[in-house]
């Protein structure tokens, strides 16, 4: 099996991470912010997979499974919070949640 160079995988992972970060920073809809977070998580998961296949270790895959679980739990909590937020504020615009400022 012809192996893909590790650099390609890492660059893809970095690009995905950057896309996710930009999404978190710029999106106003909180659902999209959550999705961008998922992209960032998966980007880091991809980096683990690439590294694991490069060195032939199983830990990277274990790590990816953990990230997957984490992401699922995070989404469950996050969606719960979003529902609460919608009930309270009748909106899902994240800028509305800026009352706690100095």
């Amino acid at each position, binding site marked *: 099996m012809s192996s893909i160079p590790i650099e390609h995988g890492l660059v893809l992972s970095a690009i995905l991470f950057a896309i996710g*970060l930009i999404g*978190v920073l710029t999106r106003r809809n909180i659902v999209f*912010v959550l999705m961008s977070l998922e992209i960032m998580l998966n980007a880091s998961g991809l980096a683990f997979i690439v590294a694991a296949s490069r060195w032939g270790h199983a830990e990277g895959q274990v790590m990816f499974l953990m990230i997957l679980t984490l992401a699922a739990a995070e989404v469950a909590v996050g969606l719960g919070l979003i529902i609460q937020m919608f009930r309270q504020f009748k909106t899902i615009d*994240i*800028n509305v949640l800026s009352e*706690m*400022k*100095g």
Partner: protein
Amino acid sequence: MQEFIWLLPSFPLAGFLILVLTSGTLSRITVAVIGAGSIGLSFLVASIIAVQFLGSGDDYYIKEVWAWMSVGGFSPGFSFYLDGLSLVMMLIITGVGFLIHLYATGYMADDPSYSRFFSYMNLFIAAMLMLVLGDNLVLLYLGWEGVGLCSYLLIGFWYTKPENGYAARKAFVVTRVGDTSMAIGLFLLFAQLGTLNIQDMLHVAEVEWNIGSGLAIATTMLLLGGAVGKSAQLPLQTWLPDAMAGPTPISALIHAATMVTAGVYLIARTHVLFQLAPSVQLLVAWIGLITLLMAGFTALTQSDIKRILAFSTVSQIGYMFLGLGVGAWSAAIFHLMTHAFFKALLFLASGTVILSMHHEQSIFKMGGLRKALPVSFASFLIGSLALTAFPYTSGYFSKDEILLAALELDGPGIFLWAGGVLGAFFTGIYTFRLFFVVFFGETSGHPPEKEVGGWHMNGPLIVLMVLSIFGGFISIPVDAVFGHGESHEEHHVSALVHGFMVAVPLLGILVSYLCFHKKVFSIEKLMSYSISRRLHKFWHSGWGMDWLYDRVFVFPFLWLSRINHADLVDRFYGLIVEVSKSANKMVVKSQTGYLRWYAFIMALGLVALLLLGIIL
């Protein structure tokens, strides 16, 4: 009965407690009965004790009631010491005190704070008895501070007027200077002699200290500081004239008859120490002389009836100090007693005058009052005669003894005597100036319709009149206290000198008669010269002592407190506060509440850390 001596301060103290705890809910009659009655009971007990004590022939009697505290070797007790000196003092305090309380039930009849007045008065009597009966200096000091407190409370009795509060604070602060000096004196005495029991202390001091030793001089100077503060002598005399802001019975009781003589009592009580320090004893005489002359001049220029009497009080206590200073201990105590009689009489009579004139105190707004106010007139006549030492009145005997003792002193004695005689001349002038201006001459302003009175106001006046005339024939049993052979020694002076001493006050009365009654010499013409106007102003202000103290102490203190208001230490701490505040403001600005902002900062921080890792 002597073992019941603890009852003496207990009655007034109980009266005080009852009046304070009921806080003005009792009827006026009840308050008057409790207030004056408690002192009456004390006087009754004091008289019985006095009779028994004099009958027993003992020199002293000690009653230990209970131990106050016991720390190491220091164990002052609530013990009472009775000898000739404390006997005389306790009879004056309870006797004159009772008369003044009785008078005050009438004088204060219209005052809304009737109950408060009598509670303070009772507390004062209790503290004063503690002062004179205590057998150790700690108990004496307790009474000493107690009377100071009551003096403060009663000067500021009509507290709604700010100037009364000012006078009260002034009296308190000025006497505090003396009290501090006295407290240091007590510490020094205890450190050196190991006891504060007065009699033990005097015995130890007599054995251990040489005449004129440094310790004797230091302790007596410190005690003298306390005495001049309480007794309003130079240099702490400025508070007494202002203390006249209180009700007139207070002026009679505290600021004439009893409390201000506490300094005289203190020196007489510790006279052994003063004998060990002859230089300080002589200083006492000079302080007395200078004070009595200064106060005499000032009294000449005052126009407020109570202030004249106040300066006269300062002057008479000056005589007592003069007597103490020349070693005429019993003569000084004798003068203390006669002064208590005639000055209480004068103050109470002036109270009647003031009340009859609807609280008018300027003597130049009175005049020709002898018909309208017969009782006050008689009181003032007798009181003034006794004050000027008219022959065979009470003041004559006591002042005579003091001046003769001064004359017999070698060295400066002749100057002290001459000064004292000059003071007696001025006493004659200022006393009868008051007398002639108030009771003779044409009536000016609104003459009173009738004299305020009643048996409880006139009764004490009559008793005090009798005492002022015949008080000189009382012989006080203080020989055992001051050592025998000191007081009843015949004074050998020529008839010429003695005649001179009798004539001088009479001459003063004559001058006063010519100036203020017959108007042979015109005061207006005298006042037309600028020098006499300036002198008048100078004397009127009490020799500028208040002015001087304002400049030397009060203003520098205010200035210091003003610049210290924003001092360097404060500025340092203020800087810390400013820095934290501005830092806080900056951090607060970063707290926008926007989630993306926080995420961005986190990402930025991460990048910065990574860059840092790469560079390093």
